[in-house]
C-alpha cells in the first residue's frame, strides 16, 4: 500500500538547513499495523505527514496504492487524501466551533455525500466509537478520551483504507489511552492499514511491526510479528 524509496526531507530556514529525513526506504502492506518509534526530533511526525500527503518530500519517491505521489500539487494531494486516508492527532484537532456530529460528517461533506448518507455514516461511525450519545456536544464539553474517540470516528467515517495516527494517546491518561488503542486494534483487525507514531512502548505493542527512526534514518524496519491476541 505504501512504498518509499530514498525519501529525503530538508527544511531550510534562513541560513540553516536541517535534514529531517534521509534516505528512507520502507514498504507497508495493506492490512498492516505499523508503529514508528524514535526519540523526539528523529523525523517520525515529518515522515507521517509525508505519508499522509500533508507534506511533500524534498527528494525520493513515494508510491501510494501503487501510484507515484511525491511530486503532486497540494490540490492533487488533497484529492487523494479525501476518502483514502484518515488522520488521528495527539491534540485531537477537532474544530471547536462544530459539534461532535458536525466534525465527523465534515469529511463526507467534502466528498459531496448527500445529507442522508452523511447522517447514516456519521452515526454509524460514532456508534462504533461509543460516541453516539455525545453527538451534539462541542469538543470542549468532552474528556480527552472522548475527543480522541470522536477524532477516530471522523478518521474512519469515509471508510479510509489507511489511518495515520500521530501519538494518539499522547494527551490521554493510561485508561483512556488503552481504550483508544483497543479501538485502533479492532479497526486494524477489520482490515484498515494503520501507521502510528508513538513514544510509548506499550502502545507499540499493539502494532504488528515497529520501525525505529534515529536522526532521520531508519535504523530498524522491524519484523512482522504475530498479532497480540
Amino acid at each position: 500500500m505504501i512504498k518509499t524509496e530514498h525519501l529525503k526531507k530538508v527544511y531550510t530556514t534562513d541560513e540553516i538547513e536541517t535534514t529531517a529525513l534521509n534516505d528512507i526506504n520502507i514498504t507497508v502492506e495493506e492490512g498492516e499495523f505499523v508503529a514508528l518509534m524514535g526519540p523526539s526530533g528523529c523525523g517520525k511526525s515529518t515522515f507521517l505527514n509525508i505519508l499522509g500527503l500533508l507534506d511533500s518530500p524534498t527528494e525520493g519517491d513515494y508510491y501510494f496504492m501503487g501510484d507515484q505521489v511525491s511530486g503532486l500539487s497540494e490540490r492533487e494531494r488533497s484529492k487523494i487524501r479525501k476518502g483514502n486516508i484518515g488522520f488521528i492527532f495527539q491534540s485531537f484537532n477537532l474544530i471547536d466551533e462544530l459539534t461532535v456530529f458536525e466534525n465527523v460528517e465534515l469529511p463526507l461533506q467534502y466528498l459531496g455525500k448527500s445529507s442522508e448518507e452523511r447522517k447514516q455514516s456519521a452515526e454509524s461511525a460514532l456508534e462504533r466509537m461509543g460516541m453516539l450519545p455525545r453527538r451534539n456536544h462541542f469538543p470542549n464539553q468532552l474528556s480527552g478520551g472522548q475527543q480522541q474517540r470522536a477524532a477516530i470516528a471522523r478518521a474512519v467515517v469515509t471508510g479510509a483504507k489507511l489511518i495515520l495516527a500521530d501519538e494518539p494517546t499522547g494527551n490521554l491518561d493510561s485508561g483512556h489511552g488503552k481504550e483508544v488503542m483497543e479501538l485502533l486494534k479492532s479497526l486494524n483487525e477489520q482490515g484498515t492499514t494503520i501507521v502510528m507514531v508513538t513514544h510509548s512502548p506499550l502502545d507499540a505493542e499493539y502494532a504488528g511491526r515497529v520501525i525505529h527512526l534515529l536522526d532521520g534514518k531508519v535504523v530498524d524496519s522491524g519484523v512482522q510479528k504475530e498479532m497480540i491476541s
Partner: protein
Amino acid sequence: MIGNYLKVVLRNVRRRPVYTLINIFGLGIGIACCFLIFLYVTDELSYDKHFQQSDRLYRVNQSIIFEGEENPVATTPFPLKEALIRDFPALVSSGVRFFNLDKDNISVANPENREIIRQERFYFTDPDVVDLFDIEIVAGNPQGGLDDPNSVIISERVASLYFGDEDPVGKDLRVEGRFLLNVSAVMKEWKDNTHFKSDMLASFESLRGIWGNFDVLTARWRWNPSWTYILLQEGADAANLQSQLDAFSERYYSDFFSEQEQVKLYLQPIEDIWLYSNLEAEIEPTSSYVNIYLFSVIAVLILLIACVNFINLSTAGAIYRSKEVGIRKVLGAEKSGLVTQFMIESILFTLISLVLAAGIIYAALPHFSAFTGKELLVGNLGTGSLVLFSGILLVSIAALSGLYPSAVLTSLKPIDSLRGKLSKGKDGAKLRKGLVVFQFSITAFLIIATALTYFQFNYLQQKNLGFDKEQVLVVPMGMTSAIWSLDQFIDRSSSHNSVLGVTGSSTLLGGSNYWKYDITPEGYAEGDAPSLTKLFVWYDFVETMKINLLAGRSFSKEFSTDETQAVLINRAMVDFLEWGTPEDAIGKTFRIADNTMSVVGVTEDFNHSYLRRELEPLIMELPSNLNQKVANLAYLNIRLAPGNPSDATAHLEEVWGEVDRSHGFDYFFLDDRLNQIYRSEQQLTQILSVFSILAILIGCLGLMGLTAYAVNRRSREIAIRKTLGLSVPGVFALLSKDYMKLIVIAHIIALPVAYLVLNTWFGEFPFQINLNIYLAGMFVVSLLISMVISMLTISSQSLKAARINPAESLRSE
C-alpha cells in the same frame, strides 16, 4: 456546506464577541457615514438638473476687463436678453431676466390688513419664466399671466401668509408702500435643489409704473442689475453662440465703455452654477465642488479605516482560525471552498453592518439634515440608486476586507496551519503594521486638516476687520421714505442714551459686493485711470464704525464743502497711487464726475467687502445731494451701547414709524449677518469635525482589537518576562512601544500630504493663517492625541495581561 460555514461563523461570533462587535460597529459607522455623505453629495450634484430643459438653460455672466484684469459678475444689463434673442434667433429660443430692485428684500403688504412683511426672493421677471423654470401653477392663470403689467405670481406659502385660507387670485398686494400688484397665479414652492428660489415673481412691465424713465433705464448697457437666463434652441450649440459673443458685446457695449475697458460675456450652463460658480453678485450664495471632493474623500477614507480594521483583526485573529483551516484541508477541503467560506463570513459581517448602518442612518438623518440645512431623505435617491449603492458597498467592502485574510489563511500548507505556524510568520505582522500606519496616517491627516480648516475659517471671521462689527444694528434703507428724513431720523435716534452713533453706507460693511466707478486720481489723464472702488458713507462713519484714522480728519458738518469736495481714502489707495505716507496724501485730489475732490483723511485699511477678497484701494465720499442719498445710502449703521438692545430697538422702531409708514422696521445685527455669510464655511468645518472624530473612533476600535490580539499572541513572552521580574508598567511599555513607533511614522507620512492639500486649498483665500506654524503645532497635537488615545486603549489590555498568573500562560503553551 454553506450551512456549515454559517454555523462556524455564528459560533465564532459567540466565542469572540468583542472582535465581532469591533468589526461590525466599525463597519456600521463607516457605512453610515459613507451613506450620509453619499446622500449629501447626491443632493449637491442634483442642483438644477430637475428643470426639464436644464441642458439648454444657460445664465449669461459678464466680465469687465480693465488693464488685463477681469472682474466677472453674475449680473447683466436689462437689454441683453432681448438683444440675444433678436441677434441669434437660430440659437437662442427665449430668455428671462430676474431683478430685485437692487435690494435684499422688498416690503409687501395686504392692503386690507396693512401688515407689512419684508419679502426676500422677490423678483421682477419675464413671462417665459413659467416655461423655462418649470413653474407649477396651482391656481389662477395657467400661463402665469406675467404678460400683464402689475401682475404677480406668488408661492403657496406666501399666499397663505397674506391671505390665509382665502383664494388669493385677483387680489392686490401693496409693494414698497407705493404700488399695487395683482395676484395672477399661485405657484408651488421652488425645489430646494435649485440654485435660487423665488416666492414672488412680478411682471417686468410692472416696473414701468415705478420708474418714470422705464424705457431709458431698461435700455442702459452700463448698468447690470439683473440676472439673465436664456434657453437655447433645440440642438443649438452653446460653443457656437459663445464664439459670437465677443462681436456681440462689441456691438452693444462699446458705446458705453471707454477704450481701456472691454466687456466679455460668458455662457454658464445652469447645472454648473451651484457647484462651479462663485462670482460677484450671485443671485444666492452658491456651494462649491471642493465640498463634494472633500466629503467624497472623507467617505472613502472612513470606509477604508473600517475595512482596515476588518483586515487587521481577521489576520491577527487568523491564529485562532488556522487550526480550523488546517483540519478542513486535511479532511479534503479545497482552496476555493475555503476562500468561499471566508468570503461568506465577510459578506455576512458586512450585511449585519449594513443593517446596523441603516439603524444609525435612521437615527442620524434628521440631525444631519438639520446640520446641513438640506432636506435629505433616503427616498430622494430612488430604489434603483439605493440598491445599486448598497450593492456596490456590500461587494466592495466584503471584497476589500475578506479577500486578504482568506488568501493568507488558505495559502498555508495544511500541516503549517495545524502547527499554528501563521502566528510566527513575520509577513502578516508587517502587513498589519503597515495597515496600522495607513490607518493612523488617515486619522492624523483628518485631525490636522480639520483643525487647520477650523483655524482658517475662524481666522477669516475673527480677523481684525478694521472696523468694530459688534453692537452694530443695521437698518436697510433702500427706497424707504426714511431716507428723505435722514437727519430727523438720526437726531431722534441719537436721543436714546444706548445709541452711541448713527451713520450710513452704500454697502454692508464686510459682507457686500461693491461697485467700481470711473475716478481720475491726480496725475492721471481722464479715462486713463483704472475703475476704483467707491463707498458712499454718511457723517460719523469713521467714528461709528470705529475705523482707525491715520491722517487728516473724518467728514464733518463743520466743513460745508465736505459733501461736494472732500473724500476719505484708505491706506491701500495711498500705496496704490504711490503717494508716500498717509500725511503726504492729504490734499491730493481726484476727479469724480465733474468735481474735483480733495483727500481730507486717510483711514487704516478695513474689509469693506467679503473677506475672500483682497483689500483694495478705496475711496469714500458723502452723497452730495438728495438724489445721491436716495440712490446710495442703502444701510444705516447704528452703534449701540453694550447690554440689552431691546430698549434701544423699541425706541428706534418708534422713530422709524415717524419717518416711514409704508415699510416695516427691519433691522439686523452686523455681526450676526457676517457670521451668517460664513455659515457654509462653519458648517463645513463642523461636518468635517464630526466625520473626523468618527474616523478616529473607528481607528481606535481597531487598535483596541489589535492590542487584545497582541496580548494574546505574546502571552507566553509576557509570562516569561514576568517570571524574570517584569513589572505592570513594564508590560505596558512592552506592548505600547511598537504602536508608538507606528503612530510617529504615520504622522510623518501625513504631514506632507496635509501640507500639500491645505496649502493648495488655502491658497484660494486672500487672508491665510500661517500654515507652517499651525501645521507644526497641529502635528504635535495630533501626535499627542493619537498617542494618548492609543495608550488608553493599550493600557486596559496591558492591565489584563499583567494580571494574568504567568503559570497560566506558560501552561497553555
